[in-house]
């Protein structure tokens, strides 16, 4: 029974979080080879996806994927699909978590052990993603309302900086007329895939009605352009290549004159760490519920058994993250890039599947 504004929260969270999630990396790698065109096309695709998906899912008020699939698809197929999706959700959260562990070690506490950091993240995420969906949405809203002003402040500060080189940005925009490529397209559309969280969160939305879908498009496009172009203004069209975490380096290049904290980096880190922790909570909450749906049995289980089930699923998720801790920077990048692409195809598949379900329901009701 959540208001539609929580959907915008989910969307906004996802589009903001893409700054750390390999998206700028992939776009910047292709800055001379059609990244901008891909951003534009990705925006159109993304908005379209959002629109279709929300319209379709609104036909199933109060139902998540498990309920929809079990009622409309063969049981075996539903189980496999849910299992696959749960994996996708789990990896989505895990990738964010891993890159944040890396960022923390690089920028904030080089002396800490990576396992301390990752375990403290995992403890928080695992405890919190067992909360009910509505609470998580409330929490998301609170965190967004705290971090969004900080992020906007950072962006304004970044753009108002006299050392920001607009010529470099313009130089990149002159590379507009190149044909888009798949990788940057899938990176660009990631900014829009916040709607996928409805797979589970649709349970608390009854009659989701979206007004002004174009706002989502504009928001996604502006976030993407900022993601892509602001670091170029700071590091130029060539040297940008050399920065691993472009956005954190960008934040490190911004100075605040009249404040007890001088470096924007820490404000930015605070905002993004809290935001990405919440995003992992949201994603893993989805993953947890999907997996629970996949392995649910018909008979009602005792609360204790339920709890054990949840904890073992979360243990599995955490083990996945911990096992990926060994990846180095380049492997992690590769992993992220793969994830971005698989995710995009997954998105198309999910929309097609949902359309099929919708057709089936309509035929059933006629």
């Amino acid at each position: 029974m959540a208001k539609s504004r929580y959907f915008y929260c989910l969307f906004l969270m996802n589009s903001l979080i893409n700054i750390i999630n390999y998206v700028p990396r992939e776009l910047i790698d292709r800055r001379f080879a059609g990244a901008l065109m891909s951003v534009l096309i990705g925006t159109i695709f993304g908005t379209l996806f959002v629109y279709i998906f929300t319209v379709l899912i609104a036909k199933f008020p109060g139902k998540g994927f498990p309920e929809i699939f079990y009622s409309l698809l063969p049981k075996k197929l539903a189980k496999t699909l849910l299992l696959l999706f749960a994996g996708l959700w789990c990896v989505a959260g895990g990738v964010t978590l891993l890159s944040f562990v890396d960022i923390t070690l690089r920028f904030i506490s080089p002396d800490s052990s990576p396992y301390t950091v990752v375990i403290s993240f995992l403890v928080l995420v695992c405890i919190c993603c067992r909360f009910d969906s509505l609470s998580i949405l409330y929490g998301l809203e609170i965190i967004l309302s705290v971090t969004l002003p900080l992020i906007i402040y950072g962006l304004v500060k970044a753009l108002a900086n006299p050392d920001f080189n607009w010529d470099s940005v313009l130089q990149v925009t002159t590379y507009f007329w190149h044909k888009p490529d798949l990788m940057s397209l899938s990176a660009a559309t990631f900014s829009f895939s916040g709607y996928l969280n409805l797979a589970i969160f649709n349970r608390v939305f009854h009659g989701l009605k979206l007004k002004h879908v174009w706002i989502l498009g504009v928001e996604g496009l502006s976030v993407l352009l900022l993601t892509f172009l602001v670091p170029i203004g700071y590091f130029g069209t060539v040297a940008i290549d050399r920065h691993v975490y472009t956005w954190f380096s960008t934040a490190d290049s911004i100075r605040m004159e009249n404040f007890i904290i001088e470096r924007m980096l820490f404000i930015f880190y605070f905002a993004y760490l809290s935001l990405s922790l919440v995003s992992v909570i949201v994603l893993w909450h989805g993953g947890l519920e999907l997996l629970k749906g996949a392995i649910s049995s018909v008979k009602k289980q005792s609360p204790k058994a339920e709890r054990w089930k949840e904890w073992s699923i979360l243990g599995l998720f955490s083990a996945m993250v911990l096992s990926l801790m060994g990846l180095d920077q380049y492997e992690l990048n590769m992993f992220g890039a793969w994830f971005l692409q698989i995710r995009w195809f997954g998105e198309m598949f999910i929309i097609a599947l949902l359309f099929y379900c919708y057709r089936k329901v309509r035929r059933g009701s006629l």
Partner: protein
Amino acid sequence: MSVQQDKHNVSLEWIKDQLNGFADLIDRTLVAPFGQIDLLYIKSVADGQILSRNVITPFYEMENINAYHNYILTYPGTEEETTREKAIELLLSGYILLGLNDTFCFFDAMNREISGVNETSAESISQGPSDALTEDIAINLNMIRRRYQSTNLKMETMVIGDVSKTKVAILYDISRVDPNVLAELREKMNTLKVDILQAMGELEKFLSSDSLRILPKSIVTERPDRVVFNLSEGKVAIMLDTTGYAIVLPSIFNDFFTSMDDKIQLPIVGRFLKLLRIIGVCMTLWLPAIYVTLTAYNPEIIRVQVALLISGSRATVPYPSFVEVLLMLMMMEFLTEASLRLPKAIGPTATTVGGLILGQAATAAGLVGNIMIILVSAVAISNFLIPLNMMSLSIRVLKYIFLFAAAFLGLVGVVVCVVGFAMYLCNQRSFGQPYFRLFFLDNLGKKKGGEH
């Protein structure tokens, strides 16, 4: 009209037998020309003046026993039909048993030691009403009724406590209250099993089951105007006889930071005060943690001039900053507690002496840094900005969690803890109402349950 009492049920002898051993049990027989009555009461709980003025004197002025009986029945407190248990209960609470011919009446001569309407002590505000709830439920209800003159204000009463037999009144505005809340509350009250109930806090504790909870979910207040204000917002108030406080529920996080001043002040001033409180809470919660983070883990966060200042002030301190903070915070807690318990006359002395020793001597001896002292006092002062005591205490405890997180993980720990705290708050429900949300005013008064 007069109903024949069931002799097998209630009899003078049986009652006397039950009350055997009561030194203050008075058993008299008054004889007049037209007949006689038996009086049975407990001296310590019955009011002698009421007895002589309203019972004994009229008896001798009446012409016959029936007229007297009718006269007694005109008193609103008089009870006739009773069971054995009820009879004992009434006697114990200060009623007088009148034996008229073959019937019994219970006359209300309760001796109420009323403390009168006092001024608020714990939640005082500068301007505005200063009456506090009294320890007598009748007066309290009177105060509430006077401030809330609406037919929608409903009241339910019940008695809780097997031994204490405390009267409890549940008040609500039927047109605004959330029926789910009411149902949940009734269910909880009915299952309550206690012997003695004499403080609001106890009832509050029984109502919320979670033993690990750290945040209060119902306001315990002594201000009738706060009760009324909350009733108008669709909340339920519970009054307890003999306590002088009322519980308001369901209360959400935001309610604990509302002072009754906010209504009185100009809107902008009111908002400013609220903002001050929010900043105060943030400071008292996070300042110690941030200090530890800055000194132990991430001195690069602050600008170099400040870092050198802190470093300089800590130059003589022989232990880690975490110990330093913990030490000073504990000292501060001791001081606060001590000045609370001490008699009013020497309270200020303790504060002065403690403050002097902590502030001056500790820095002079090099045991703590200068900046630390500023920080601890800021933490202490900002903690007192919270208008309601229960929340203020909770926040006092909570800051140690952040402190520990900062001590073990630095900035990462603090951020993780802040996010965790926010999520924890959002996961809490106070009688089905979300405890902490961004737009608190969404469903107050107008919507019930339904959309959140």
